[in-house]
Every structure is written in structure tokens, then in C-alpha cells.
């Protein structure tokens, strides 16, 4: 069983990503609607992947990536940025902070599945 944390403030987008990812099989999805909630979930699961948006209330995606990648307990978890094409500059910054990939909204379900599979080494 692989654990994935989805951090995204839109509940419909979360639900849609969940349904796409669950098609990949043995996957347990945990949702967080803000950066704070994500931080809260971190110690509770052994996550295999974190998917995060950039623009969010309280702490944003970049701040979250920074948190995870700076913390020796979590820095090994791959992180994927999922955000819109508008945030080109922010995506680059996310990558320098240690994110492992990004994908642009809107995306095709297969595209998301492929990226996730490779990050999870399925």
C-alpha cells in the first residue's frame, strides 16, 4: 500500500485527483486543504508521495516544500507540484527548493497517472 498526501484547497480538484489516482491500485489517499493541515498529517502517516498546489491559504506550496525538504524526517518523500501554467516562475522556485517534479493544470488523467507511477516507482 502506498500513501499519498494531496494538498490542494479546492475540494473538487482533490476529489478528482483522488479518483484518478485510485485507479492505480494499492493506494491510500490522504487529503489536506491547506499547508497547515498538510504539516499536521506528516507524522501520522509514512507518506510515499506528496502532491501540492502552490497557491493556497495559510502557508503556500513553496513554503510547504521548504518545510518538508528541510526536515530530515521527511526530506526523502518525493514531492510533486500540481499547479496552473500561470505560476511558471513559482514552479522553478519549487524545483530549486527540492520538489521532484511538476505537472500543469489542466492535465490529462493519464499524464498524472504516468508521472505518479514513475515517482512511486510502481
Amino acid at each position, binding site marked *: 500500500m502506498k500513501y499519498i498526501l494531496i494538498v490542494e*484547497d*479546492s*475540494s*473538487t*480538484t482533490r*476529489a*478528482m485527483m483522488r479518483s484518478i489516482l485510485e485507479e492505480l491500485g494499492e493506494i491510500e489517499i490522504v487529503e489536506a*486543504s*491547506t*499547508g*497547515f*493541515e498538510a*504539516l*499536521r498529517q506528516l*507524522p501520522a502517516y509514512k507518506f510515499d508521495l506528496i502532491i501540492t*498546489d*502552490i*497557491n*493556497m*491559504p*495559510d*502557508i*503556500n506550496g*513553496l*513554503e510547504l516544500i*521548504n*518545510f518538508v525538504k*528541510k*526536515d530530515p524526517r521527511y526530506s526523502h518523500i518525493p514531492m510533486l507540484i500540481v*499547479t*496552473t501554467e*500561470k*505560476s511558471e*516562475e*513559482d514552479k522553478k*522556485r519549487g524545483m*530549486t*527548493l527540492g520538489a521532484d517534479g511538476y505537472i500543469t*493544470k*489542466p*492535465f490529462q488523467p493519464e499524464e498524472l497517472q504516468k508521472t505518479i507511477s514513475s515517482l512511486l516507482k510502481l
Partner: protein
Amino acid sequence: MKSSEKEFVAEAEEILEEAGSLLLVIQDTYKEGVDPDSLNALFRAIHTLKGTAGLFGHQGITDLSHAVESLLDEIRLGKIAVSDDVISFLFKNIDLLRYLVDGVKEKRQTDVSGYLAEIQAFRESISKAGEAQSLEGVIDESILKVLSEYEEHRLKTNLKEGKGIYILKAVFPFTEFDKMLEEVRGKIKSIGELLSTMPVSEALPEDSIGFNLMFGSSHPLKELEETLKFEIHTLVEPKSAVEPKPAVEPKPAVEPKPVPGKPPERPPQLAEPSLKTTTTTVRVDIEKLDRVLSTIAELTLARGAVKRIWTEMAEAYGHTPLVIDMYKITQTLQRKLAELQEQVLEIRMVPIGQIFGRLAQVIRRHSRDVGKKINFEMFGEDTEIDKYIAEEVIDPLVHIVRNAIDHGIEPAEERKAKGKKEEGTVTLRASQWGNHVVIEVKDDGGGINTEKIRQKAVERGIIKADEEVHDKELLELIFTPGFSTKDTVSEVSGRGVGLDIVKDRLSVLGGFVDIVSEKDIGTTVTLTLPITLAIIKALMVKAGKEVFAVPLSSISEILTLQEDAMQTIENRMVYNLRGEMLPVTSLKDIFKLTDNVTGKAFIVVVGFGERRMGLLVDDIVGQHEVVVKSLGDYFKGIRDFAGAAEIGKHEVTLVLDVESIIEGTLMRKGSVHV
């Protein structure tokens, strides 16, 4: 509509509602300095809408929100200054987005290319302020690379304004960090601007979490340490307060200018949504709640059956312990069912402030469009009303409010000449009266010209030229279909919704509208609505073989028909009710039923005061609690029915719209002229 589509529409509507109110806040405050948090929240709202719409393949909404987002991005990055023009352009586009989201519900496709070009042209028409300031050497690079483009811009702005840049270090126990962190962030926002939340670099105990909060503030370090009570260190000292602040220079009202920074003293209003709201509320489709109510209604029927069995058992076996137990159970059932019903109805209630907020937007925009200064006041926003009714009543209210602005409030010169304040006032007031909510829309304008109504009514042959008609009755005429003087119906809106439609809508909801107008003092339109229409108590009556439901709330008494009290005057049936001549209509006549029924008949007296009449029915079946359902679009044009109700499992009864029946009966004197 698929359920995922519904979810999308619900979320999109919520986002746009939030966007609208954020824009209102910006409109109200930008002259004193744009609040970066509101602006950023607005950007984020549209950004989220774009992302979600894209995933659901709504190309038009995606493209338009993308264009709006780009515009907002330039605004929040300080490249475009906020001005009245920018704000009204944004309002217009939020409206457009709303229209497109509505289109998803109605499966309507809209070509947005024209709107996109318009936004593009608007962006190009506005000169852009460059931002050429390097942060290198001023702020450590390890911090800079964590910042998003927007945060970087805010950091630059703070520096430009001579604010100090500080970092506050806070370490919290993991179990409670979110609440405590939110508290510190709130405090920081009250004395400056929070720029970024970063992790602390040194190792911390396993069960704790640490944050470096970077913020800008014009206060000196010592003061900050005293207020915030945390370890703070300085990245950049604030420039001394003795220097004249550029923000104080006189401000032209309309001319675009660089966005001034946030003033140093601002209460921590409009903080970002707290964690609590995201975790303790659920969004429920109103249809699901309707289904719960239907189930409750069925349970209520079942309880009735149990009670009947108890009565029979009590008659057959007397009050044995078993029978008494059963009685107790039926009592508990009844009490608990009533509680359950009340609780579900409570879930459907929303504060009327939700509608008032939207009306506030209409008023501000519309008064700008027509060039009138209007002061808007509202009272009783906390009054609660059923969500469904709230949604249904918004269009009529928009109509009334627009009328007040277009035709109620006089132009400024006219007001001055009358010795009134130049600025007109529109007041919205809501209050609860028993089972009703009363919404009052009041303007201090010129009042409705009853003389014009009279002329029009004479032209149309509704009244005779020399007929004596009270002003009150003349005012009533503006609710007649197609009746419009320029004074009563908005032509600015171009929607052609007359007050007659307003009246019909209210009537379907079981409410009514009343209007009072006084020359040069103003006009007050009062809407009276039931708090909830989900469940009503109804009297089931029979006309011929058909059963109809009459809402109990509109019945004043029920009589057994005394043949000799029935008379016919001028072709109309009247009933002598204790000396008063009560107009009577037979339900069978209204619905053209021909079944002959013998035996005693009843008169159900409906309506109140002068608007009272009798319904002649063949039998009284009994009393029921019914869940009223709309008849749907297909039957929209049919009068005299408020909806359909399910009684029992598969039986459906039509619920009479008493208001429209009274209307039909009492107004017949007008129809003589037709």
C-alpha cells in the same frame, strides 16, 4: 447534471461569491491603501476557479478566469494601480464568470473570445509601473529563493515604504501548532504584514515544530518584542519615522497611481480563512435535505398509524399496562419526530446577510452606472431564512432595489432643490415575525407618482376617468401584469421583469408583497415570506372526487354550509357570515370538475382582513403535514397551485396557492372591463 458537475457548480458559486465580497472590501478601502491580503485572496479565488474549471473541461470559464487572473496578478504585483475603473471592470468580469457558471447548469455554451479580447485591451490601455529593484545583498539569498513571486513583490514594497523586515522564531508543540501559529500570524498582521512562513533550520525536539515568520513593520524592534513576546531578529532596520511619508500626499480621486502600501495600523480583519471553517462545515446539496424531510414526513404518517392502533387497542382491551406503554411510545415518537424535523429545517436556514451582501454589490455597481450617490444601510442580517426561499427571493429583491435606484432616488440636483441630502439612502431591513420573515426595502426618494398610475389605468380601461380610487389601490395596480409606467418598472436593466413577476414569485413561495409610498418622502416595499416552506400543515379538502391541500396558515375558519346563508349578488356567490358578505368560490368551478357529490358541504374561509373569501368544498378529509415540492418548469405558467405534496407513499396532492385564488376571485370586478 452529473453529481461531479454539481459539485463544481457549487464550488464555483462559492468562490465567486467570496470574490465579489473581497472586491467590495477593496472598493471600500483602496483609497486609504490597498489591503494586500484581500487582493491576494481575490487572486487566489480566481486562480482556484481556473484550476478547477480546467480539470472539469469548462474551457470558457478556464479561459476567462485565466484572463482575469492575469489582470489580478499584475495588480497584486503592483504593475497596475487599483482605481474605480479597474474595480468596476473586475466586477463586470466576476458577473460574467457567474453567468458562465450558470451556463454549466443550463448546458449553455458561450463564446468568450470577445470578453478575452476586452480584458487584453483593458490591460494594454493601462500604463504599467515598472518594478526594478534588486533584493540581492539586502536579504539573504537562502530566504529569497523560498519566496514566491508575489511574496517577493510584497517584500520589495515593504522595503520601498521604509518598513523594517524582521524574522520571528516560534516553536510550538506539534499537537497544538496550528491554533498557536494562527494566533501569532494574526498578531503580526495587526502590526505589519506577514511575508513568509519558513521552517527553522536547527534541530527541534521530536514532538515540536518551529517556524520563522518573516514580516514587515514600521515599528521598532523593541516595541515588536513587547507586543508579540517572541524571539525576533532584524533583517532590515525600519527607516526612521521622522522622514516624511510619501503616502500622505493629496490623493486625486480617479487618476490611477502606484498602489500605496498598507497603512501601519490596521485591525487584523479579513484574516485568511481559519482552519476551523475548513474542517467543521460540510456542504450539502439541498435536495439531500429534501429527501430527509420526505422521510420524516413518511415517518410521521407511520406514527399516525401506530397511534390509531393504540386507540383501537385501548378501546378493545382498556388501559392495560401494555396499552399504556404503547401510548408512551407514540408520545415519544411524536416528540422526537418534531425535534428531528425542526433540526433538519434548521440546517436549511441561512442568515439573510448572505443575500444582503449580494444586494450591496448590486446597489454599489448600479448606482455608479446611473451616476447617483447612494448610501446603503442594512439591518437584521442575522435573521435566518430557508436556503431555498433565500435563493428564490434574490431576483425579486434585485428588481426592487434597482427600481429604487433608477426611479426612487431623485438626481442630486432635484434632491438639493427639495432640501434633501444630496446622497440618497436605500435601507434593507430584515426581521422575524413569528413564522414569517419580513424584508423591507426602503428608499428616501421621490415616491411613486400615483397620478401617473391613474392616467395609465384609465388609458387601459382598468378604472373609469371619474372613478374614485384610493392611492393605496392605485399603488396595488403596479403589480398587474404588463402594467408599467416609467416610474415603476426598470428599463435600465433591460430584463423586462415587472413587479407582477415579483408578486407571482412571492405568491408561489407563500409570501406577499406590500408597497407604501409617500411623495418626496420615499417608497417602502415590504416582502413577507414564510421562514421555511419545506413542511407545512395543510387541510386536505375534497372537491368532487379530487383531494387538494390548503395550507393551514391561510385558513381562518371552517364552516358547515348553511344553504340559506348562500346568496348570489351580481352573478357572484356570497355567503352571509355573521352579517358580513363573504365572497365565495367553489373549488369545483375553479378546476372545472363536474362530479356531482351529495351530502353536506363546507366553506373554508381563507385569507385575512379585507382579503378574505370562502372556498366551497364537498368534504374535509383531515389535517396533514406535507412537504411541498415545486411543480417544475413544465407547469410554471399554471396559477392557483403552489406546488405538489406527497402524502403517504405514492399519493400526490396539489397544494392550492391561496393568494392567487383570492386574487382571481376578488379582482373579478376589474375583469368586467376586459
